[in-house]
């Protein structure tokens, strides 16, 4: 009978590894709790209209509750308020301009940007003796809320805590690893004194990491990435990358469904949960908790 | 007034008949890059006359027409309409004056209906909405009135080229036209359609429309025209009243030499059969049995749509046969593709140079060599030298008027394009040559040359199938003449064994 309960989860972009981990967590929760969990999502984090349509369709299906990660703060506000009139809405990962959420499980992306800044400063200090020098930022796509927040947190933290670190380039790519790679190689060429880079998502970290490996610059340029997969973990092990900011997408998915089920039954749930952002370096990657984050169980 | 200006080239403009010439050119000139297409020409068209223009391929006839209709800009010179200078920079301007033309290549819209084409640019509408039905009715009335047996509501693309040409003529005739130009209108018409066209022209003449008529067919010129102007190499070499000249005179003026005999024919004793069809059927024709022997010209005559082109293209492997047999050198063969036909030794010069014959935006040289690359480059790699040599040989041999082999085929005059269509097969070493309307738009001089080439091919033991809708041509050249009607072979005749009238009767089928 519990299988009749449907709780769809809507992510920002089904074509990215990060969101696949979220979905994996949700899938597991569905199995554990006996809930039917349709896995929905747009095909790009920039496709706001697509996500609105998916939300509309999901609500039309008459689910018990909906778990959603809004792609854009303002744009999803009204549709979510609208949807909340008929079902309970649980937000994960990012916020939206609506107070109709029953519960929220988020990583603070601004905080993630700050963690990245800290990690970069530390790595530069370890190499050069002081948190000083030129740094750069590579963003995967323009107009994506979470990426903008990471950039914001990163820049704020630099300004507030590390006046010695000068942001010399703030590049926006087109979502392609190759573009990230090309931007990184050109940054290396154009800025011989570059000491650090923050590549603020998985794909950019892969591209930038490859550029550093190609040019064997790992001792000169410290790279901080965001999120992880085995490619980046290998880079980390090999010392190509100085650190990764890692969230807990699996838990977000799992707890999202769990909370939604509870809420749909009328149980009271916590309004805000911070699932945290951690800096992973070569030094701490062996820790049990971190290792679990780096190798989420996907099936 | 402009009438007092003396004129060197026109031979005494007839005065008094209708006063001021309706259209007058003074020093009109057109240069293309590398070609002086029309050298300064001065000429006056009298109101109400039928003025023929003749000249070799590439002499500049179409160029002159395009200048008069605002299709291309002129390099220099002046044009006067009823004594007033006019710009004629756009087709619109020409149409507003009442100047219309039926251009050499049919230029209408295949995707629109006949009625839509006839009204294109002059649609009738009420409150901004098109009067579809009224226009179809009106177009149909016009067609019926002209005696053209054509429907107005079908898509133009569904008609044959000849029928499209008639529509183009009907359309030009009904637009408040005062000055109407026909650029080789009969090239794609059968005799019957040509007769319809002539009736239309006569009627327009009676209504006082001035007509300019371009043709390579001398008898048409003599049948219709009141005066005739001759162009040679872009120069206007003279104007004659029709009563004061004859065919030989015009030809001499056109090509600067005389031709004693256009239809050149040598008789060879036919050898072994090359190709035989037995009860062959396919799309558009049924149960056709013919034999082509070495040294023989087999002519196929018929009205438009009689199925001759379909028959030969099926033999050539373009369409699938549905019944019957093809024998090659006495052995039954199945020809599945054009490449297989060529491999056997068949060459086909198709009827429509624009749609089937030429790659217009490619160089002349490539067009000439296209069927022989398998021979020029057996390994796949091309020898640039051989390629060039062969192209140049063809250009020289056929006297194709072009700046060089690298020139694009589209910039050649219509007749010269036709020479490429034929020429690309001549040195191909085929045994059987199929020429479908080979002399469409070709000038008399070249025609004579082409017929001489036929003889040469025959002397080497080849056989020829000649399709022509121009009866004198097949009549004079064919050793055996087959008449087609509605997809069937209705009669066969030996050389000069039947009269013109006999053959026509068979083709029309009383």
């Amino acid at each position, binding site marked *: 009978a519990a299988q009749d309960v449907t709780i769809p989860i809507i992510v920002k972009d089904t074509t990215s590894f990060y969101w696949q981990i979220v979905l994996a967590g949700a899938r597991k929760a569905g199995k554990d709790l006996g809930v039917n969990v349709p896995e929905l999502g747009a095909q790009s984090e*920039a*496709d706001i*209209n697509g996500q609105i349509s998916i939300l509309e369709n999901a609500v039309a299906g*008459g689910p018990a509750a909906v778990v959603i990660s809004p792609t*854009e703060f303002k*744009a999803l506000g009204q549709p979510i308020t609208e949807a909340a009139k008929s079902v309970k809405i649980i937000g994960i990962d990012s916020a939206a301009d609506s107070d109709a959420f029953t519960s929220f499980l988020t990583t603070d992306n601004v905080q993630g940007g700050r963690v990245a800044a800290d990690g970069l400063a530390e790595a530069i200090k370890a190499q050069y003796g002081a948190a000083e020098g030129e740094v750069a930022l590579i963003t995967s796509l323009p107009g994506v809320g979470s990426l903008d927040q990471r950039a914001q947190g990163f820049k704020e933290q630099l300004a507030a805590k590390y006046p010695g670190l000068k942001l010399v380039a703030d590049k926006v790519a087109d979502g392609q690893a190759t573009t990230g790679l090309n931007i990184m190689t050109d940054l290396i060429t154009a800025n011989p004194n570059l000491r650090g880079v923050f590549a603020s998502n998985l794909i950019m970290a892969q591209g930038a990491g490859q550029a550093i490996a190609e040019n064997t610059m790992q001792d000169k340029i410290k790279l901080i990435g965001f999120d992880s997969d085995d490619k980046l973990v290998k880079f980390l092990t090999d010392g190509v990358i100085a650190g990764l900011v890692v969230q807990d997408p699996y838990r977000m998915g799992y707890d999202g469904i769990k909370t939604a089920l509870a809420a749909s039954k009328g149980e009271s749930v916590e309004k805000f949960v911070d699932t945290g952002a951690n800096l992973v370096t070569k030094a701490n990657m062996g820790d049990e908790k971190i290792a679990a984050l780096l190798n989420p169980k996907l099936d | 007034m402009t009438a007092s200006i003396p004129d060197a080239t026109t031979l005494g403009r007839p005065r008094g008949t209708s006063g001021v010439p309706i259209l007058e050119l003074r020093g009109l000139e057109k240069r293309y890059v590398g070609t002086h297409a029309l050298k300064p020409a001065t000429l006056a068209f009298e109101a109400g006359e039928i003025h023929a223009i003749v000249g070799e391929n590439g002499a500049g006839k179409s160029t002159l027409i395009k200048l008069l209709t605002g299709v291309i800009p002129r390099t220099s010179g002046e044009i006067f309409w009823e004594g007033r200078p006019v710009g004629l920079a756009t087709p619109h301007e020409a149409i507003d004056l009442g100047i219309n033309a039926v251009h050499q290549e049919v230029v209408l819209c295949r*995707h629109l209906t006949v009625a839509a084409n006839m009204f294109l*640019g002059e649609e009738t509408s009420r409150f901004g*909405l098109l009067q579809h039905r009224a226009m179809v009715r009106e177009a149909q009335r016009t067609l019926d009135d002209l005696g053209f047996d054509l429907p107005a509501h079908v898509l133009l693309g569904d008609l044959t080229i000849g029928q499209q040409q008639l529509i183009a003529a009907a359309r030009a005739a009904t637009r408040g036209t005062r000055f109407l130009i026909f650029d080789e209108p009969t090239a794609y018409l059968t005799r019957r359609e040509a007769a319809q066209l002539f009736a239309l022209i006569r009627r327009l003449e009676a209504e006082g429309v001035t007509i300019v008529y371009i043709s390579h067919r001398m008898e048409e010129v003599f049948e219709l025209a009141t005066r005739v102007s001759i162009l040679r190499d872009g120069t206007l070499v003279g104007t004659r009243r029709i009563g004061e000249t004859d065919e030989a005179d015009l030809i001499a003026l056109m090509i600067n030499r005389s031709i004693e005999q256009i239809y050149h024919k040598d008789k060879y004793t036919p050898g072994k059969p090359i190709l035989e069809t037995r009860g062959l059927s396919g799309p558009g024709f049924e149960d056709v049995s013919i034999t082509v022997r070495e040294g023989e010209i087999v002519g196929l005559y018929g009205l438009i749509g009689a199925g001759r082109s379909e028959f030969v293209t099926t033999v050539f492997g373009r369409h699938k046969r549905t019944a019957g047999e093809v024998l090659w050198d006495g052995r039954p063969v199945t020809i599945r593709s054009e490449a297989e036909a060529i491999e056997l030794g068949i060459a086909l010069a198709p009827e429509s140079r624009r749609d089937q014959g030429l790659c217009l935006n490619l160089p002349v040289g490539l067009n000439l060599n296209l069927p022989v690359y398998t021979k020029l480059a057996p390994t796949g790699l091309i020898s640039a030298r051989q390629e060039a040599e062969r192209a140049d040989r063809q250009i020289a041999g056929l006297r194709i008027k072009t700046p060089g082999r690298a020139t694009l085929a589209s910039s050649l005059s219509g007749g010269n394009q036709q020479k490429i269509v034929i020429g690309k097969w001549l040195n191909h070493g085929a045994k059987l040559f199929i020429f479908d309307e080979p002399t469409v738009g070709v000038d008399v001089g070249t025609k004579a040359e082409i017929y001489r080439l036929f003889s040469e091919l025959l002397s080497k033991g080849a056989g020829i199938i000649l399709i022509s809708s121009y009866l004198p041509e097949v009549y004079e050249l064919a050793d055996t003449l087959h008449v087609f009607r509605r997809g069937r072979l209705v009669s066969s005749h030996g050389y000069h064994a039947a009269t013109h009238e006999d053959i026509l009767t068979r083709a029309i089928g009383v």
Partner: protein
Amino acid sequence: MTDVTNKARGLPKGRLNILFGLTLFALLLLLWVILGFATNSFWTGNNISNLLRQGSMTAILAIGQTFVIITGGIDLSVGAIVGFTSVIVSLFLQWGLPIWAAVVLTLLFGVAIGLFHGFGIVRMGLPPFIITLATLTSLRGIGLLITNGATISITNDEFTAFSRANFLGVPSLFWMVIMVAVPAYILLNHSRWGRYLFAVGSNAEAARLSGVNVPRIIYMAYVLSALFASFVGLLLAARIGIGNATQAEGWELQAIASSVIGGTSLFGAIGSVHGPLLGAFILATINNGANLLNVNSFWQRIVTGVLIIVIVYFDQLRRRRG
């Protein structure tokens, strides 16, 4: 494009267009019936409203695109125009302009872009593919520059409420489709300019020789396409409540696909208004159905690709037989 695929052109078609329209409509109904059986939620009023809303924007783009394709051209910029004008209108509203003024000014931007395309094609002799590709690239850049890569929020609730409103039980977005389609239909089939669009696509030289002002017709087609795209930009801005230059990525291909599924020929001179409408709603139905059936979104892509091939193939077959 290649002539090989082109044989269908020469054969009689006559009234077949209408018939074909009907067949596509039958296909759409068939999809709906199947989905009605396969899911409980398809035939709910809510879902039908959703479906109508979801297909609306592509439908309007596809109609504009069809005008361009009929002339034998293509407009790759429509997606970028949508994103760009969503930014423009948000900006105007942020400045406090009244809605009508913001709307009119934004549409004027659309017209200007269309004029630019016409200019590039007619005066500069650029291939439509290239000039609209260039506009695509540049417009996204300009939009990003204006917003500095961020989004502009629209605080004017009256403006955003519009996209969710219903009128006579039908979503206002779908009314907008009707508002565009009806004049478009009259223009294409019952006015001389429509006739000239076909004539230019069929044989521009013949049209010119008949006294048709070919450049003006080309301008018209591209202006309409860009105007419709900017109109969609308005609708999108109202729907998502923000202006963002990177929105509507790839919508140009969706619009072209809708148009072609609806029977428009990329060689020009063949097309209708109802065709692209049906095409757009078929695509929307595929997506909607896949969501309702909980089909993996990766499978959705595969299915869409396959369906495009199947539908266009049967269209070709039918025409060839016709």
